[in-house]
């Protein structure tokens, strides 16, 4: 085991980023065009990074699996983006956003990163407004805010229920401007299948053209992964169908450490599962908890329809258990509470696997038009999916896999332990600790892309010795043939189960044993079961069609499932090793008498960075210890 160095700059927490920006080396403007940077992924982090780096003068090559960069899954983020603007005059500040985020993350994030995020947050809003992002506004023309879970101030900026879409379109447009200007070369329908490492540094990628099946190599001076999270390891999640972990998993297998893989976020308000044909779960934004009240019937197995259950027969359990935060308790806490109610037999709906989110009182108080103005598109979405009208009957909701705090380990400069490999957004582990607060993912993605990587990558490029290489290099040829061999292997199994069959099986195991609550026996069982899934995958998979010449979605899925299986195993291993409960990681053995997460700061106040040791051996654990100098380690309480 090695000690991981987060390379946190010295100085007081308020000065670290400012000092660091001054101390970092710069690349001369006329030299920037001599550097080629590879950006994989075009969500908020990828698009914003690509646009900004091209504006600075770098040559940027951008890759996405979609037909258009605008389809990246950031587009689906609903609720909003946090920023410490204090426009509401309600006591917000950079320090409070920093404090809330560290506490919300249950003290498993790196303080310096979180502070930088809070410092940058106001600039993000400025930048987005200048780009023409149509944020919600007050009648006086100023920006409007709302509240999100885990905060007692109103600091969330939003564009109806489509904030992610509007922010992404802003970043996408900024990037397309650079495409036209020639600074960005765009490669769509390309999937990164391998990282190319030369002399210990990331120097390129190997991709598969999803339209033609062609395997292609691309060389560069630095590689930036902004490929999102791995929530789809659960098969059913709020992630898009194509969201996958292959890029980061391939990088992991090339030497990048995987940070805190067991820190996954189960979002409390999703539309419940309705049948085994279900392909994904749909999130109902956390913003709904501003006005919706969560409840279950007091008596077990109460199958009456909700309007027949009078107020004193209802348990508004979040308001009861957490009087000061009420329905706006953080996600991990709210999800677990929902699970407790359902496990007690108080769940509602035909499956009993749901709780109510009720707008009756809000409609009474504000009128239907105000509720519709705030959440109209979400209500419409709910009605389309369930066939029920949420203005009339309460929504039925249940937790679902939504976000992954874990990801590739990066230092303060967002660089992994592999020199040149930078990881942004949800793909890295960095800012959210063991639980992410609502409306912070958009903030982090854009902070990383617009305002952090443009500085830190310059420092890397100016400091590192980077000899010119081309794709003729031996390492490219070798990596390319590895990829070809892997594709050929997937095609050659010709078994009887589809990639979806196996993915669903993996998802069941992950949800059952590595989901909302975990225990040692279950995790051991999960590792064993995942091993069997892996065996079945490599012996009985069926991929129809051809590998080249045309689109083959089944082949794409198969490659991703293969990686999810290995990642699932690592998640279970990480969850098993972390003998404490914190944030989204809830180990049943470690809880307080009133069922709250019980951290073990003496033994687990660190980031777990896992190193790939080959197929035959389990990963090796490295630790980056976390110190809390500005936010005192304390038991989180939202009561």
């Amino acid at each position, binding site marked *: 085991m090695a000690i991981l160095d987060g390379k946190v700059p010295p100085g007081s927490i308020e000065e670290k980023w400012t000092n660091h920006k001054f101390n970092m080396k710069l690349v001369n403007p006329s030299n920037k065009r001599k550097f080629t940077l590879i950006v994989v992924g075009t969500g908020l982090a990828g698009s914003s990074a690509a646009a900004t780096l091209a504006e600075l003068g770098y040559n940027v090559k951008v890759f996405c699996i979609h037909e258009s960069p605008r389809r990246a899954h950031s587009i689906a983020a609903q609720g909003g983006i946090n920023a410490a603007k204090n426009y509401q005059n309600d006591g917000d500040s950079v320090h409070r956003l920093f404090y809330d985020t560290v506490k919300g993350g249950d003290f498993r994030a790196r303080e310096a990163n979180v502070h930088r995020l809070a410092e940058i947050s106001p600039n993000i*809003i400025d930048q987005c407004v200048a780009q023409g992002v*149509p*944020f919600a506004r007050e009648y006086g023309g100023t920006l409007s805010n709302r509240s999100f879970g885990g905060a007692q101030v109103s600091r969330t900026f939003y564009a109806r229920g*489509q904030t992610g879409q509007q922010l992404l379109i802003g970043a996408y447009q900024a990037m397309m*401007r650079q495409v036209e200007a020639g600074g960005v070369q765009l490669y769509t329908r390309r999937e990164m299948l391998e990282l190319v490492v030369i002399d210990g540094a990331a120097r390129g990628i190997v991709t598969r053209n999803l339209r033609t099946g062609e395997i292609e190599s691309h060389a560069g001076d630095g590689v930036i992964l902004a490929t999102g999270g791995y929530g789809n390891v659960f098969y059913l999640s709020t992630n898009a169908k194509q969201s996958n972990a292959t890029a980061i998993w391939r990088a992991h297998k090339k030497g990048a450490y995987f940070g805190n893989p067991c820190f996954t976020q189960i979002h409390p308000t999703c539309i419940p599962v309705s049948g085994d*044909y279900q392909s994904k779960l749909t999130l109902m934004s956390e913003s709904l908890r501003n006005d919706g009240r969560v409840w279950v019937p007091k008596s077990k197995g109460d199958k009456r329809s909700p309007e027949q259950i009078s107020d004193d027969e209802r348990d508004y359990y979040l308001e009861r258990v957490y009087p000061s935060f009420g329905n706006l308790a953080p996600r991990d806490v709210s999800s677990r509470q929902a699970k407790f109610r359902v496990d007690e037999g108080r769940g509602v709906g035909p499956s009993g696997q749901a709780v109510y989110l009720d707008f009756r009182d809000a409609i009474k108080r504000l009128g239907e038009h105000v509720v519709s103005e705030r959440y109209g598109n979400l209500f419409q979405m709910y009605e389309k999916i369930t066939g029920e009208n949420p203005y009339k009957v309460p929504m039925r909701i249940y937790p679902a896999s939504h976000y992954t705090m874990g990801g590739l380990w990066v230092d303060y400069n967002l660089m992994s332990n592999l020199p040149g490999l930078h990881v942004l957004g949800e793909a890295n582990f960095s800012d959210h600790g063991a639980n992410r607060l609502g409306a912070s993912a958009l903030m982090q993605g854009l902070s990383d892309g617009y305002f952090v990587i443009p500085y830190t990558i310059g420092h890397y490029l100016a400091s590192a010795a980077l000899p010119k290489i081309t794709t003729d290099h031996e390492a490219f040829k070798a990596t390319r043939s590895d990829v070809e061999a892997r594709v050929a292997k997937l095609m050659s199994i010709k078994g009887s189960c589809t990639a979806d069959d196996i993915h669903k099986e993996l998802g069941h195991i992950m949800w059952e044993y590595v989901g909302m609550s975990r225990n040692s026996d279950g995790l051991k069982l999960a590792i064993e079961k995942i091993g069997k899934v892996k065996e079945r995958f490599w012996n009985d998979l069926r991929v129809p069609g051809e590998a080249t010449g045309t689109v083959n979605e089944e082949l794409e899925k198969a490659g991703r499932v293969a990686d999810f299986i290995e990642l699932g195993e690592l998640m279970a291993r990480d969850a098993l090793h972390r003998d404490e409960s914190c944030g989204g990681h809830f180990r049943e053995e470690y809880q307080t008498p009133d069922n709250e997460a019980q951290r073990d700061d003496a033994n687990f106040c660190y980031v777990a960075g896992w190193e790939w040791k080959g197929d035959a051996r389990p990963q090796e654990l490295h630790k980056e210890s976390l110190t809390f100098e500005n936010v005192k380690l304390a038991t989180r309480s939202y009561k």
Partner: protein
Amino acid sequence: MGGASQSTIDLKLKVWRQKDAATGGRFEDYDATGISTDASFLEMLDVVNQRLIKGGEDPIAFDHDCREGICGSCSMVINGNPHGPERSTATCQLHMRKFNDGDTIVVEPFRANAFPVIKDLSVDRTSFDEIIAVGGYVSVNTGNAPDANALPVPKVDADQAFNAAACIGCGACVAACANGSAMLFVGAKVGHLALLPQGRSEHNERVLAMMDKMQELGFGNCSNTGACAVACPKDISFENIVRMNREYAKASIKKRT
């Protein structure tokens, strides 16, 4: 695990199958039996595809991703209508409870010269990106922004801009248009940015460049049928086209070269 209603229906599908852009295509018949009415249209296709794969056949290719009506990936024309019969709905949000047992459903790709078929129901819409690239943005580099509240924007304008910006770039407008025109798509972007003070300064150049690009890429001309706005899953208003007509004329007059 059980949903709101639990019933299943049997359907007959006529699906356009086409190996690639170069090869011609044709309709093939498939039986979709035992489909839950709570399933989405895409989940119905998933079920059919899983059966096809297990039967040794090539699954039906179609674009999809977020499956919550926002990424704009899903396309296809269902019984003659882009995104199917329901208004304000993308294919991924269309649920099988809208169909009846025994129905025959005809499924084809979006058709327009500027959207060549890639495979089966999947078409190439990258021409939209090319249109955005020539001007669908505010030219502001990162770091150049004044305080977000420095320039107040009337709520009415911000709301209208949002309505136009809600476009998901799915291309249903083009698919619905008898002329394969992209006026609604372009009009929505021009409208979004024209309605905000941040977008005004380069407004004339933008509308000219984007429209010229649209024409160059082989989209047809608008004949004001309004079919685009009706097909739009995000209810982008026809007003955006009219506004763009006006702005284009003004920009043409003001143009200096």
